């Protein structure tokens, strides 16, 4: 049995998505920029997907800018937005728990003279809107905050943060890569100016995403070279992937309430089982303000890397926030930012539920886990 509990890393394509993409790959070969029949067919397919994205998160179709994924969207939001103000390095506000695709552009902006205030989180992984407000300066050009943390699933109080940022008249970017398709998002109610999302996190294809850019924000395209996407992103559109993203949005809009309920039930079944069967565990991150599908657990005294491998041998796919850097295991920066020790962080695993998971799979995982954890705890060399 394979039990895939790593949907925050990537998620399997839904059949409907695959079929829609195959229809494009087989039947629609035109370039959306072309003025002929074939081009119009491709343009229509892209526009329909644009409408589906817009509908899911409550925006106008015109604000949807297709990218090659969330990393490009985050890079475009930060570098494109700020690159437009050539020569005028200013100040940015972000957090200590951002995804590397935000953190790396922030670091390059710092090298170019920008100042960045990274607001910290509490031990539950939560930001405080008042602290964001306090970090804003006269020179602050942008605030960029992750909506749902990829490792812990913790949901930031985006609505409150958006309100304080809007009150100061500063553009607000939200990296919603892990949130879209997992929780309701209605930008008619939340004043967000820029938002990044990625198709493959909610059963769409890899290599496609969006930067939602509200209104008439001026920014420089990061990929230059064509009139596509209203001149904001050069390059012929990946029509099949964009169509796949559109269908994934349609399914998400249709199924969201049911999806949230089902995933939360499986996630809770898993956590209840772990707590009952495995001693010395604790949940990382807020249990209240969290994605319905994500569970991050510290197994005291066990090496996460080893446990991950041992679970894979038993057919269970999970993830650890740790990364291998030059042969050493670097503990998760997110967990460190929440005040965990490197050892605690190294002993943590992420379980993320998604399409295809059921109670039988969770019970199988629970039947395997206690023994593997116990045995990993005895391996002193790991």
């Amino acid at each position: 049995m394979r039990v895939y509990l790593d949907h925050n890393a990537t998620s399997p394509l839904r059949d409907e998505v695959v079929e829609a993409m195959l229809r494009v790959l087989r039947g629609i070969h035109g370039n959306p920029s072309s003025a002929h029949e074939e081009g119009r067919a491709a343009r229509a397919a892209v526009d329909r997907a644009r409408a589906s994205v817009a509908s899911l998160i409550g925006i106008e179709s015109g604000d949807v800018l297709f990218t090659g994924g969330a990393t490009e969207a985050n890079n475009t939001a930060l570098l494109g937005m700020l690159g437009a103000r050539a020569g005028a390095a200013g100040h940015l506000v972000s957090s200590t728990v951002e995804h590397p695709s935000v953190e790396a552009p922030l670091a390059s902006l710092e090298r170019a003279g920008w100042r960045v205030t990274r607001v910290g989180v509490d031990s539950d992984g939560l930001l405080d809107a008042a602290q964001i407000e306090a970090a804003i300066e006269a020179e602050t050009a942008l605030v960029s905050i992750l909506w749902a943390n990829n490792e812990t699933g913790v949901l930031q109080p985006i609505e409150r943060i958006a309100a304080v940022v809007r009150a100061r008249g500063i553009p607000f970017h939200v990296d919603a890569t892990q949130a879209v398709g997992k929780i309701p998002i209605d930008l008619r109610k939340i004043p967000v100016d820029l938002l990044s999302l990625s198709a493959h996190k909610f059963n769409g294809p890899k290599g496609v995403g969006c930067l939602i850019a509200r209104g008439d924000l001026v920014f420089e395209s990061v990929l230059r070279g064509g009139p596509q996407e209203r001149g904001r992103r050069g390059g012929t559109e990946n029509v099949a992937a964009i169509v796949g993203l559109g269908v994934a949005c349609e399914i998400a809009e249709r199924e969201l309430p049911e999806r949230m309920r089902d995933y939360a039930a499986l996630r809770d079944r898993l956590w209840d089982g772990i707590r009952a069967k495995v001693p010395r565990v604790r949940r990382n991150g807020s249990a209240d303000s969290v994605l319905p599908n994500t569970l991050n657990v510290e197994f005291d005294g066990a090496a996460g890397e080893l446990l991950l491998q041992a679970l894979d041998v038993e057919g269970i796919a999970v993830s650890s926030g740790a990364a291998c850097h030059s042969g050493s295991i670097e503990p998760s920066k997110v967990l460190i930012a929440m005040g965990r020790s490197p050892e605690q962080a190294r002993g943590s695993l992420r379980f993320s539920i998604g399409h295809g998971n059921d109670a039988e799979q969770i019970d199988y995982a629970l039947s395997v886990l206690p023994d593997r954890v116990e045995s990993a705890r005895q391996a002193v060399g790991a």
Partner: protein
Amino acid sequence: MSADQQPSGAVGRADAKRERVVAALSGGVDSSVAAALLVERDLEVIGVTLNLAGVASRCCALADADDARRVADHLGIRFYVANYAERFRAEVIRPFAEDYLSGRTPIPCVACNSRFKFEYLLERARVFGADRVATGHYARVDVDPDTARLRLRRAVDRRKDQTYFLFELGQEQLAAIEFPLGGLEKEAVRARARELGLATADKPESQEICFVPDGDYAKAVEAICPEALPGAGEIVDREGRVLGLHPGIHHFTVGQRKGLGLSAERPLYVARLDAGRNRVVVGEAEDLNAKGARLERVSWVSGVVPNRAVRATVRVRHRHVGASASIEPRAEGQAVVSFDEPVRSVTPGQAAVFYAGDVVLGGGWIAESL
């Protein structure tokens, strides 16, 4: 769940009926063929590469892991990287440099085998639900028909035999080890690799210590322990007469002739390194001969320390053919080796490994030559 929902790799389903074994994959030809031979026996093989990452400059470590991953893909087995860089630095690299600075000539491969391959990797295997670890070492394990204990024996291919580096293994470890190549000639192994279409079939062999790829040990010691370098000192003869200066004792090993910068009527060799006085003691060829050696941290493969002197062939370095000797066990894991005929360049820091024919009885670490 429906078929479209779950990714299915080349690995297929875990089969509870098959015995699970972990194969250490280095990315080289030997470990690749060893793993392939296990796959042919229909075992459930899990490939693991130890990422020891050596010194920071060693960029080929990652390339080796990529080679190992390709081999695992080719064989259709699971593959993981075990990251032990921090431990390796603390438990192998650092002691290696400290040995040089203490006037010894270390063999880090023994600790690497004893700890990383047959302790930590074995631990990992057990977490994987596997009871055994297989490596591409050239050595054999079998059962002594007289005592029913496990024996460590030299490989069929004597030129490739690696038992010298494995002498610290005991009964518990041997019970959990497989050496699939122990009965094969190296050429046969290469031929099998080509037959199997393994990408590593013609990869050159690694000879040097893995974290000193250019073989410049002195430079490596300086990089590892820059704060502990003793600096220049005197070169003296056996009577203590100063003959010259040396740049640091870590540049020298017993028996070395080159690099002394001395001119003498007869060739001079390093006879001894005196770390306490930061001196290199030189002598003529016959001064290198030792009648015996004092050993420490002695271990016996059988797990039983003999209660009287044992006759054996003793090898005092990897390329040494061996010398007949008596080994007298002493208290606290020590032993004294007395050679029948004097042996040249018995070097502190190297191992003295005891053989009865092709069976490894045990061994210990040379503390001093006698």
